[in-house]
C-alpha cells in the first residue's frame, strides 16, 4: 500500500503557527490569621474542588529514636475524632463520592479533601473536624501499627523500595532524611498514643500553616469559610526548622542488596543535592533535564536506545526544605549492570567536561516550558503548584521567575552547575540484585558492602 501522491512536503516538519503564550493561572493569596494563608484559584470548567491543608509538622521533626512519628500522626488524623469513629469518617466523605486523605512528607503534614463542588461546604467542615478534633484512639493506633508493619514486610521484596531505603541510609546518615519517612520496624513497635498527641500539639496547629483551595468555587466564599473553620486554630510561632548538614561520602561506595535469583538488577545512584529554595533551582533543573530528566536525555538515549540495557533511565534533583537527593535510577539486565553504571559515569563526566551544545540547551528549555503548561490542566495539577508555593514559602511571582531563570540559563552555567552539583567521585551506588554476580562486576567501582533485604 504505497502512497499514490506526494503533494505535501514530507521532508521536514511544517513551520509552526502563531504562538499563543501560556500564562500561569490567576490565583489569590489571602491572610486568614497571623502566619496563616489561603491560596485560592477558581477553575469553573469542571464541577470539582480540592482543598489542601499543609502544616509544618513534617518528618523532618521526627525524633532520632522515633522515625516515622510524623507519618503515624498524620495517618491517624482521619481515624477517629470527637464526633466520629474511623468508619464514620470514611463514610461521611465517600458517600458523596469524595475523598479525604492525610499524610506526612518530609517538609509538612497534609490533609486534603476532593469532592464535587456542590459538596464543598460539607467537605471543608469535615476536613476541619478531622484536623481540629483528632483523638488518636488506641485501638485504631494498634490497627495502624499492624498495617504498617505488614507494609514493611512487603517492601522487603520490592526492588525499588529496597534501593530507596538503602540509598537514604548511606547518603543521609545521621540526619532525619536517613531514616524511612514511614518508620522502621523498631520505631513502629514502640510508637505510642502520648507520643502522637505530643507531636501533634507541638507541630500541627501552629503558624506557618497554609491552605490551598482550587476548582469551581467562589474565592470570597471559600475565604470566609476557611477563615471561620481554621482562622483561630492555627496560631503561635511556626516551629523552628531542624538544622543539619549532610556529610558527603569520602569516595564512591557500592552497596549491594542481595536478591538471589532476581530477574533484573535495580540501580539507584547519587548523592545529596539541593534545597527546593536554592536560587539556582531552575537552572539546575535545566542541567538535569538534559543529562537525565527526559526521554531524550543523554543518559536515557545512551542506556536505552544505544545499548538496550534498560526500559528507561532517569535522573532527578528532588528539592526539600533541607538538601534533597540527586538520583539516577534504572533497572537493567544483571549481566550488564557494571556496563550500565559505567555509561552513566561517562555521561556525568561529559557534562562536567564539555559545554553542552546550543541546540541541546535550546531544546531542553523549550521542553521544560512546554511541559509546565501541560501539567496545569486539572484541578489537582494547579493545587500541586500552589502547594509548592505554600510549603516552600515562595513568592507569588515565583513561576514567572522560574521561567525567566530557565530562559537565562546558558551553556557556561550548565557546565559550572554540573561541576558544582554532580559528584561522581562521591557517589552511592545501590544495586539490588543477585550479590554473587554483582560483587564480581562492581568491585572496581568503589568499596563494596553487601546487605540483606532484611537489614534495617
Amino acid at each position, binding site marked *: *500500500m504505497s*502512497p499514490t*501522491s*506526494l503533494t*505535501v512536503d*514530507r*521532508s521536514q516538519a*511544517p*513551520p*509552526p*503557527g*502563531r*504562538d*499563543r503564550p*501560556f500564562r500561569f493561572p490567576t490565583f489569590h493569596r489571602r491572610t486568614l490569621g497571623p502566619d496563616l494563608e489561603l491560596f485560592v484559584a477558581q477553575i469553573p*470548567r469542571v*464541577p*470539582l474542588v480540592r482543598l489542601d491543608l499543609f502544616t509544618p509538622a513534617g518528618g523532618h521533626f521526627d525524633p532520632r529514636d522515633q522515625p516515622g512519628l510524623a507519618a503515624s500522626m498524620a495517618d491517624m488524623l482521619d481515624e477517629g475524632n470527637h464526633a466520629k469513629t*474511623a*468508619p464514620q469518617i*470514611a*463514610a461521611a466523605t*465517600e*458517600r458523596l*463520592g*469524595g*475523598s479525604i486523605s492525610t499524610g506526612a512528607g518530609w517538609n509538612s503534614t497534609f490533609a486534603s479533601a*476532593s469532592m464535587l463542588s456542590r459538596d464543598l461546604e460539607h467537605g471543608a467542615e469535615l476536613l476541619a473536624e478531622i484536623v481540629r478534633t483528632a483523638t488518636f484512639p488506641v485501638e485504631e493506633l494498634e490497627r495502624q501499627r499492624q498495617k504498617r*508493619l*505488614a507494609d514493611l514486610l*512487603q517492601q*522487603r*521484596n*520490592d526492588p525499588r523500595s529496597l534501593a530507596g531505603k538503602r540509598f537514604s541510609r548511606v547518603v543521609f546518615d545521621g540526619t532525619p532524611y536517613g531514616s524511612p519517612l514511614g518508620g522502621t520496624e523498631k520505631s513502629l513497635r514502640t510508637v505510642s498514643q502520648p507520643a502522637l498527641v505530643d507531636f501533634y500539639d507541638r507541630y500541627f496547629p501552629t503558624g506557618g500553616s497554609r491552605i490551598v483551595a482550587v476548582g469551581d468555587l467562589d474565592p470570597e466564599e471559600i475565604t470566609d469559610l476557611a477563615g471561620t473553620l481554621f482562622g483561630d486554630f492555627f496560631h503561635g510561632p511556626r516551629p523552628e526548622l531542624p538544622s543539619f548538614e549532610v556529610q558527603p561520602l569520602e569516595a564512591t561506595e557500592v552497596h549491594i542488596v542481595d*536478591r538471589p*535469583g*532476581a*530477574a*533484573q538488577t535495580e540501580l539507584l545512584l547519587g548523592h545529596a543535592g539541593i534545597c527546593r529554595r536554592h536560587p539556582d533551582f531552575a537552572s539546575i533543573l535545566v542541567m538535569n533535564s538534559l543529562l537525565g530528566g527526559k526521554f*531524550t536525555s543523554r543518559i536515557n538515549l545512551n542506556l*536505552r*536506545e*544505544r545499548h*538496550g*540495557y*534498560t*526500559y528507561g533511565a532517569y535522573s532527578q534533583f528532588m528539592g526539600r526544605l533541607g538538601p534533597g537527593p540527586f538520583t539516577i535510577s534504572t*533497572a*537493567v*539486565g544483571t549481566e550488564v549492570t557494571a556496563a550500565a553504571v559505567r555509561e552513566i559515569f561517562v555521561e556525568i563526566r561529559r557534562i562536567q567536561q564539555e559545554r553542552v551544545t546550543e541546540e541541546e540547551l535550546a531544546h531542553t528549555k*523549550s*521542553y521544560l*516550558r*512546554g*511541559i509546565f*503548561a*501541560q501539567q*496545569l*490542566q*486539572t484541578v489537582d495539577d494547579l493545587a500541586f503548584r500552589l502547594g509548592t508555593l505554600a510549603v516552600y514559602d515562595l513568592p507569588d511571582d515565583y513561576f514567572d521567575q522560574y521561567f525567566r531563570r530557565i530562559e537565562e540559563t546558558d551553556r557556561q552555567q550548565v557546565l559550572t552547575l554540573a561541576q558544582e552539583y554532580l559528584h561522581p567521585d562521591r557517589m552511592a551506588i545501590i544495586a539490588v540484585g543477585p550479590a554473587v554476580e554483582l560483587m564480581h562486576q562492581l568491585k572496581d567501582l568503589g568499596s563494596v558492602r553487601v546487605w540483606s533485604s532484611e537489614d534495617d
Partner: protein
Amino acid sequence: MSVPASRLQVDRRQLPNGLKVNLHRDPSLPLVAINLWYHVGSKNERPGRTGFAHLFEHMLFQGSQHIDTNGHFQSVQQVGGIVNGSTWYDRTNYYETLPASHLGLGLWLESDRMGFLLPAMTPEKLENQRNVVMNERRQRIDNRPYGIAHERLHELLYPADHPYHWPVIGYMEDIAAATMEDVQSFFRTYYAPNNAVLTLAGDFESESAFRQIEDYFGPIASAPLPDPPRPTLAPMTGERRDEIADEILLSRVYIAFHAPAYGHRLWYAADLLTTALTGGKSSPLYQDLVYRREIAQDISMSLLPTELSSMLYVVATCKPGVSPAILEEAILEHLAEAATRVIPAEHLERARNQVLNSFYRNLQALDRRADAMSEFTVYFDDPEGVNDEARSYLDLSPQDLLDYASKYWLPKQKAVVTFVPKNGESSP
C-alpha cells in the same frame, strides 16, 4: 442526581481512504492533543508470536522514511510536547500533546509512520527494541512481587486458543523470536488509515486543521482488513486455579470472573458493583475483611474494559499469618451474598457518587478526552458517547447489579491464583 449539560462537542469527519477524524475544539489552554487509535492489539496475535503488537508499537518510535530514529521523541520534546504510545488487548494508541502552534508537527509525524514506516526499519533497530522490551517485561512483571498474577489469571480464565489468553507484553521467548518479516507483514496488515481513528482536542481552527489532516493523511492508501477475531467462549466447566510460590512475605489471593464486553449494560453493572463492594474504606468488603476482622491488608476489585468479553477480578493481600484459603473463603462469602441479594442502598448511592466524581476528573485534561473520543469511535462509532458514560452508570438499578452477579459469579466459572511465600509462611 444530575449530570450537567455542558457536553463535549465533536465534529466528525472521514477521509476517502477511511480514516475517521474527530475534532474537539477547546481553546481554554494553548495546547492541542493528538490521539490516534489503531484497531489492533495483542488479540490479533497468534500463539508463538505473542507480544508482537507491543514490540511493534516500540518500532513506531524508531523513525520512518522522513523521520530520524527517535525523531518522534526528539522533535516533540524539543518544542515542549509530550509523546508516547501504549498497547492493549484490542488496540494500540499513539499520542502527543503539543503547544497549539505545533499541530502541524504532530500530523507530519503521525502520518509519516502510518504511510512510510518500512523504509526506516532495520534489523539493528529491531534487535535494540527487543532488548528494551525484554527489560520492560522484567521490570513490570518478572522482577516485581506478584508481577505474574494478571498473566496467570488470563491464562486460566480464557482457553489457550482465545486471544485474551496471552499477555499483552508477550512471552519472553516470543519477544526474542520476532523477525523483520513480522514487522513488515504486521504493518501492511493493520496500519492502514481505514483501521485508525484520529482525534484532535484543544486549541485549533477546525477547517485549517482538517485541511492539514487531508494533506498529510489523505494520500495514504487504504488496505483490505482481515476479519477481526471472533472467538467463541464456551462457559467454563470447572474452577481453574494455580498456586505460585514467589519471593514475597505476604500471601495474596486473586479471584477472576468473566463479564460482558465493554459497553454492555451488564458491563456497567459489573463495574458499579466493584465500586459498591470495594470502593473506599467505607465499602463493605474493606470494612469486614480489612477493618473488622483484620485478615486482609488490602482489597480491591477491578474490571477490564475489553472488546470481546471482560475480566473482573478481586485482589486481596493476606495479613501476616493468615492463610490465603481463609481469605479466599471470606471473599467468596461476600460475593455469594451480592449474587443473591440486592446491594444495600447506601453502598449503591456511594458508588454512584464515586463514579460521577471520577467521570469529571477523567475528562479534565485534553489528552484524556482525546483518548476517550478515539476509544468511543473504535468501539461504538460514537465519539460524543463519552458524555453519556456517567449516565450509563447512574441509570442502573440495584436489580442490574444483581443480574450481573447472579449470572456471572458462579463457583465453577472462576479462576483463582494464590501467591505464597517461597520460603514458607511469614511470621505474624
